């Protein structure tokens, strides 16, 4: 565990220097919220400012978990860093565990910043426990994408990871109602996505609506699927690192 924490610390200090990563996980959600966030409309039974706050928190956390990891894992596999680590006393799964821990530490930052923005710029007022629940749902939900990033990054070379990631990114964010609220046919289509589930659980909590049990179950199922895929990728690549 000591080794995993050391590696996690090194990964975090690397990410802190990465401006592109900070732009996607923190910069973009903040900018979008400042531009689009203040509207009078009501969405999913709550004010637009509240909806857009959880949407942007989900955007930053999920895209950070995916973009921050998939390409880097693939590149680090290509340059042989994963192989080099296997020659050290770090346990074999230490690399992946450290990546996911790193992702969780950095996404919490983006979630907290966007929620603070919603509170003090958007004027969203909630009970204390609701803030905590929203933050945890979005934060833990982003591990779904961290697992997906491991599955993709381990399986494909960097030049293929780029388009695959972009595709997954757009499908899940657009269909998940993260950039704009879903209605009609799009809503039917997008309801099963983990991004929609994370946003909808949050808005239901804000609106005081009882959360349909299918939503959290959906998140757990997605997590199980992507963790399974990640394990398959890591195993199948064990001898070709």
């Amino acid at each position, binding site marked *: 565990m000591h*080794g995993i924490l*050391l*590696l996690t610390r*090194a990964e975090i*200090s*690397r990410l802190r*220097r*990465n401006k592109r990563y900070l732009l996607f996980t923190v910069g973009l959600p903040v900018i979008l919220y400042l531009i689009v966030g203040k509207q009078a409309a009501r969405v999913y039974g709550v004010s637009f400012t509240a909806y857009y706050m959880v949407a942007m928190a989900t955007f930053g956390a999920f895209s950070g978990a995916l973009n921050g990891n998939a390409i880097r894992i693939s*590149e*680090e596999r*290509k*340059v*042989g*860093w994963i*192989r*080099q680590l*296997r*020659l*050290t*006393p*770090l*346990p*074999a799964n230490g690399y992946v565990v450290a990546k996911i821990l790193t992702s969780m530490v950095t996404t919490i930052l983006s979630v907290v910043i966007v929620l603070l923005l919603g509170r003090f710029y958007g004027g969203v007022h909630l009970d204390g426990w609701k803030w905590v629940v929203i933050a945890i749902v979005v934060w833990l939900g982003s591990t779904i994408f961290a697992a997906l990033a491991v599955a993709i990054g381990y399986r494909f070379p960097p030049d293929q990871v780029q388009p695959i990631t972009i595709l997954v990114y757009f499908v899940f964010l657009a269909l998940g109602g993260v950039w704009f609220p879903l209605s009609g046919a799009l809503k039917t289509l997008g309801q099963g996505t983990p991004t929609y589930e994370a946003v909808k659980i949050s808005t239901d909590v804000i609106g005081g609506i009882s959360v349909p049990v299918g939503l959290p179950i959906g998140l757990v199922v997605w997590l199980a699927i992507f963790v399974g895929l990640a394990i398959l990728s890591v195993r199948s690549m064990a*001898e070709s*690192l």
Partner: protein
Amino acid sequence: MSHSGTGPVVSFENVSKHYGSLKAVDGLSLELRRGETVALLGPNGAGKSTSLDMLLALRKPTSGKIRMFGSDPYHAVKSGNVGAMLQSGGLMPEVTVRELVTLVAGLHPRPVPVATTLRRAGLEEVADQRVDRLSGGQTQRVRFALAIAGESELIVLDEPTTAMDVETRQRFWAQMKEEVAEGKTLLFATHYLEEADQAADRILVINRGRLLADGTPAEIKSRAGAKQLSFRLEHVNEPFLLGLPGLVSLDVHGDIVHIQSSDSDKTLYAVLDAGYRPSDIEVAGLGLEQAFLAITAEDDRAAEDEPAAQTTKQTTRSALR
């Protein structure tokens, strides 16, 4: 220290690694003893890298057994008994040399002070540069630094001096000798035969996944036919030359004859006894490179001729012994 017995540090017991029908490693058996400096020699595709990968638990053998410090390779590596540097090993991007060495030292149960490692690897001047902005030779030294960032009893180096200039290479080996003087065991693969000759006290020659020769540099040289005998002779009679005692190989260019012989005196006397009077006679010891080429070439020839030329194979084998 987890292992202080007198048993072998590393043992391969009839180890094979097959990829489909390709036998990358084919029934390899060997032992490394404490304190030895061993060079692993072989042409490209001989199975060197696959063998090192299996030793370091990066690949699993198809069959056979590898033991290291009395346990399986994975646990030996994870307990910090092995410091390794592979050609295919890469560096974490976006960090400085010092940060990376500090990280890897921290992963080790018996870390060496970072300043010591940087000095030993000759990295003090570039310690605060980013690893992805270094030259090939500097990158190679960082890989080496990672292999010695912890106190390990066995050091495994795959082509450690590739991309180093001559001066750096000499400094590297001087440094390495200091490292192993403390009783460490060193296994290295190399393409530079003079390097194996100078640095190793034991050489393993592998070809087509099998161990062909195992001995001191001097033994390997003598094993390939001790001497190279050359002379000029008008009207060469090749059948006669092929029948000479001690002959291992024969090479004729016009009137110039090159013979590799396991007993050059006897060979030369036989030429003289037959009434020939060759001129420009030269007798020289084989260098390690020639010995290596001779050993692997014999092996390749034997493989190609199988099973038609069973007899030639027998004679070349006996000549090699």
